[in-house]
């Protein structure tokens, strides 16, 4: 099943996809364009851990002129950077290079501590699509990628759907693509991840407990380009969804 979280008619609703419409938890059927889409995540009582991978596709690592990492290159993001489907992301004034990153996002379903790779899928609730924007002008070599590049307001669109694991039989063989104003600029497959999803869950849970609702953004393949105000960016993953985002200027 595909789950969404939307604002409609003055309230926030859990919803599911039903024949090209949204079925709200209260029984109403509404059109996709009648709602404001929020990140498809249930609220959690503590701040959500958001792990994000850098250089997790060999071709992207090459594109950025680094050798492939020997262990996951991971950074953390705050929940304040998340926005939903069909929202706007701010390009700061005066920057030269801001790019999208289409990523398979794993949503943890149950508390995971010292989980073995073979058991890892049992700890996943589902998958969604993340667009992990970066403002490369602000890149510095201290705790790189630094938060000024990666943790800005509006710069992590997420959605539209949380898709149950049961509906994603092989998450390690999904096509990813990004279009900018309708033109394909990025295409790849999750099969090309350097560290796959079960590996990542084993690795992170070996030293930090993952809780329900925590996220792992699994990195992006080759094909990143600059995004300008007005550009419509669609990051899509086969079977998971197409996440639409529009760039706007800061003012």
């Amino acid at each position, binding site marked *: 099943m595909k789950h969404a979280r939307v604002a409609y008619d003055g309230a926030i609703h859990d919803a599911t996809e039903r024949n090209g419409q949204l079925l709200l938890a209260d029984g109403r059927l509404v059109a996709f364009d009648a709602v404001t889409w929020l990140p498809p995540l249930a609220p959690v*009582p*503590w*701040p*959500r*851990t958001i*792990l994000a991978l850098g250089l997790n596709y060999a071709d992207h690592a090459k594109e950025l002129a680094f050798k492939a990492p020997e262990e996951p*290159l*991971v*950074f*953390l*993001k*705050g*929940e*304040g*950077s998340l926005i939903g489907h069909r929202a706007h992301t701010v390009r*700061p004034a005066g920057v030269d290079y801001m790019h999208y990153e289409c990523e398979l996002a794993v949503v943890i379903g149950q508390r995971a*501590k*010292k989980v073995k790779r073979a058991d890892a899928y049992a700890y996943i609730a589902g998958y969604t699509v993340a667009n992990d924007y970066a403002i490369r002008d*602000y890149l*510095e*070599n*201290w*705790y*790189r*990628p*630094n*938060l*000024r590049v990666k*943790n*800005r*307001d509006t710069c992590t669109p997420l959605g539209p759907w949380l898709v149950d694991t049961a509906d994603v039989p092989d998450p390690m063989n999904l096509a990813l693509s990004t279009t900018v104003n309708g033109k394909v600029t990025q295409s790849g497959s999750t099969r090309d991840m350097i560290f796959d999803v079960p590996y990542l869950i084993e690795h992170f849970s070996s*030293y*930090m*407990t*993952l*809780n329900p609702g925590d996220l792992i953004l699994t990195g992006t393949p080759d094909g990143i380009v600059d995004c300008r105000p007005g550009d419509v960016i669609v990051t899509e993953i086969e079977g998971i969804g197409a996440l639409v985002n529009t760039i706007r200027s800061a003012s």
Partner: protein
Amino acid sequence: MTLRPVLAAGTVYGVLLNSQDEWAAWAGQMNEPPYKAPPKAPVLYIKTANTWSACGAAIAVPARAPEVEIGASLAMVIGADARQVSAQTALQHVAGYVLVNELSLPHASYYRPPVKYKNLDGFLGIGPRCATPAQVGDPNRLRLEVRVDGRLQQTVDLGRMLRPAAQLIADVSEFMTLRHGDVLLLGLGAQRPHARAGQHIEISAAGLPALGTLTNSLVEDAE
């Protein structure tokens, strides 16, 4: 997690290299690879919820690293959202202050994010209580004392921060909103003391009993 009375459900952000003394210790390397230049923006990191330990809690140290580094700091708990605020008004966004014991596994490189060194379960002692802005006054006047097994190991002068509290909030809020309940640590001292399993850590602010004394003991990971 028993910290709900002290911390709201926000993200905890720490800042590296805010102490003048730590900056001075690193200055000789800052223009060398892989850093190539001194940092311009505040160098932030996140202490995720799995790291939170209440005052009095035992914190497990993994067998792979027998010693941990003690990062005493003062946490600023954000009240009203701070977005692109000026240093003049920044402290109006602080709802309260609380002591933290920001533990790390020692790491010699600051090039990559320190997740595997700083985000182990339990690696952020917090408490025992939140002091009001009126009780604290100017947070940069405080001196934090770190004791291990009762012996004073470090004094952190919060007056020696390159970005004092108000400037730090202003500079962080320039690029990301500090939301209600988020927490920003004011920075760590230089030459942070180490401790190992079996030892007991106390952090207090000299002359300010309103913050209380944060105590945590280190234990071997039961694994």
